[in-house]
């Protein structure tokens, strides 16, 4: 479907538009961080610590005197980068493996791939992430000559935990599509397996994946926030919404409500926006909209 058509149809669903607006705002803010943030998120100013929202600091300051608004804006960058990145790679690997498994039904490859999926599927995502970080360690890691920085590591990890789910969805669709007549017809006309998988099977297996992947962006935000919250994710002093929540832990009951509320609100709005988009996409991607002729 053409881009305009996609956006036109997305517009039909007002909730989808609302979601787009929310997410769009966050993304915009994240991209424009250097310009949007009023002050340096890392600048310590112990004199102004724990100030409530005011005209100087719109969202207040945290325990180190850093402007909360700036930290949230920069944190958006961090969180969204990790979220989008992990979903992107998770989709890439998941879809590839799912397609291979679906096309090669009945072979050892299919069994291996699906069993691996099942294996990692059976471990709750967060637990898996925690376990893996526990093994690999926090902060940047070095694998021999390579240094993988913190962000990339997190992206890879969370992507890894998404791969089975997305792979399963693709696999289910690819299984069905691989057996369909149009694939059979093309194969009998001499098309190569690569052409079949990429041109024919992939486009027909992708829609449910897109919906799930969209929803996973929201999940990724929360996973990253959770990991950072317990200290295994983004390492301080880099701001991310999760680390900010971690810091805020100490101040919830002592009355400095703004330190916890605003990062939490940011996460909430972002995830809600993403979910709205995901729902709208699910409705939208059904190619047979309108009155179904089968009923007449």
């Amino acid at each position, binding site marked *: 479907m053409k881009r305009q058509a996609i956006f036109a149809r997305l517009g039909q669903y007002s909730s989808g538009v609302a979601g787009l607006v929310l997410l769009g705002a966050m993304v915009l803010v994240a991209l424009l961080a250097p310009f949007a943030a009023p002050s340096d998120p890392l600048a310590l100013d112990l004199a102004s610590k724990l100030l409530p929202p005011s005209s100087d600091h719109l969202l207040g300051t945290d325990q180190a005197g850093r402007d909360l608004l700036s930290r949230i804006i920069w944190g958006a960058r961090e969180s969204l980068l990790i979220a989008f990145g992990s979903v992107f790679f998770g989709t890439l690997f998941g879809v590839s493996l799912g397609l291979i498994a679906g096309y090669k039904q009945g072979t050892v490859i299919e069994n291996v791939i699906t069993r691996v999926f099942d294996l990692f599927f059976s471990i709750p995502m967060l637990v898996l992430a925690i376990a893996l970080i526990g093994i690999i360690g926090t902060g940047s890691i070095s694998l021999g000559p390579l240094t993988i920085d913190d962000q990339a590591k997190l992206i890879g990890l969370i992507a890894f935990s998404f791969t089975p789910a997305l792979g399963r969805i693709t696999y289910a669709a690819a299984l069905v599509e691989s057996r369909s007549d149009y694939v059979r017809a093309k194969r009998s006309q001499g098309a190569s397996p690569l052409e079949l998988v990429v041109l024919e099977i992939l486009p027909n297996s992708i829609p449910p994946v897109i919906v799930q992947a969209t929803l996973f962006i929201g999940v990724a935000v929360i996973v990253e926030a959770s990991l950072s919250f317990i200290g295994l994710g983004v390492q301080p002093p880099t701001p991310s919404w999760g680390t900010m929540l971690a810091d805020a832990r100490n101040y919830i009951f002592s009355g400095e409500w703004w330190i916890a509320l605003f990062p939490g609100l940011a996460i909430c709005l972002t995830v809600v926006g993403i979910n709205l988009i995901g729902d709208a996409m699910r409705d939208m991607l059904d190619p047979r909209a*309108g*009155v*179904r*002729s089968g*009923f*007449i």
Partner: protein
Amino acid sequence: MQGSSQPLLRFEGVTIATRGSDSSRVLVSDVDLHVSAGEALGIVGESGSGKSLTALSVAGLLPSGVALSSGRISFEGKVLTELPDSALHRLRGKQISYVFQDPLTALNPTITIGRQITDVLSQHVGGSRKTLKRGAIEILSRLGIADAEKRVRSYPHQLSGGMRQRVLIALAMVCKPRILIADEPTTALDVTVQAKILELFRAIRTTGISLIFISHNIDVVLEFCDRVVVMYGGRVMEVGTAEEIGMAARHPYTQALLECVPRLGTNLERLRVIDGQPPGAQETLSGCPFSNRCPRALGRCHSEMPLSQQASPTSSFSCWNPAPTLAAASAS
């Protein structure tokens, strides 16, 4: 057949349209028909004829976005279109039952067929699990499923198409409805299986149940039904008894249908054809929907929908330029 004063089911001027916000498309237009007690009415139509929607509208089963925009449907004198959904719900399954075309999708693939039957039984009849199970086995064997004892534990996909259809019929018959509406019940089945299912329907009819039998196969309908309605493009083209339709059809579409059905026994080099195709869901039509394919179309046909005229006490058709009756009966 039975001369009851009031028909069991009656459609008056029923029009069904999509319920769009800005545009609404008429799918079924101005349908009048009736079914008497114990009678079998056949509705013949191709895709786009509106026959399935007409059937679904009886028990309020129209898909969302599609609704009756005018006309009434009465059942045993009660106007169904005025009943709330809860009242309709009580009628469905009890008095008005459906059998649909594709038994595979009409049955829950994850529940054994025995369970599906006992579920319905328990809702309407009740009893212990053992009695229910025995009831299910009995229904299945009565409907011709061999080895019913074992079959109750099967899942729909393990049965053949014919057996699945029998299960569907069993589910529809469980509560002894007054009218059974069968939408293309044999279309997905093999010819020999179809013959057996039709036998089954014949047996069912002996219990006095009325039947609406919808099919695109005019031969099945002519063989099996008392009266026949021919629909095209959402409108009724012709109504009559089976004999009248089969031998004395006046409407060009009916005649064309009768001629172009491939039949054994006719010796044609090439099959007779109706050029063009039935109207799709996207098209709205003014005038007679068949006018763009009709060999007898007049100018008037394209702009004005013909009014229905009686050809006999039991038959009527809607055409500005009806054909003289076919001289010979349909072949063989």
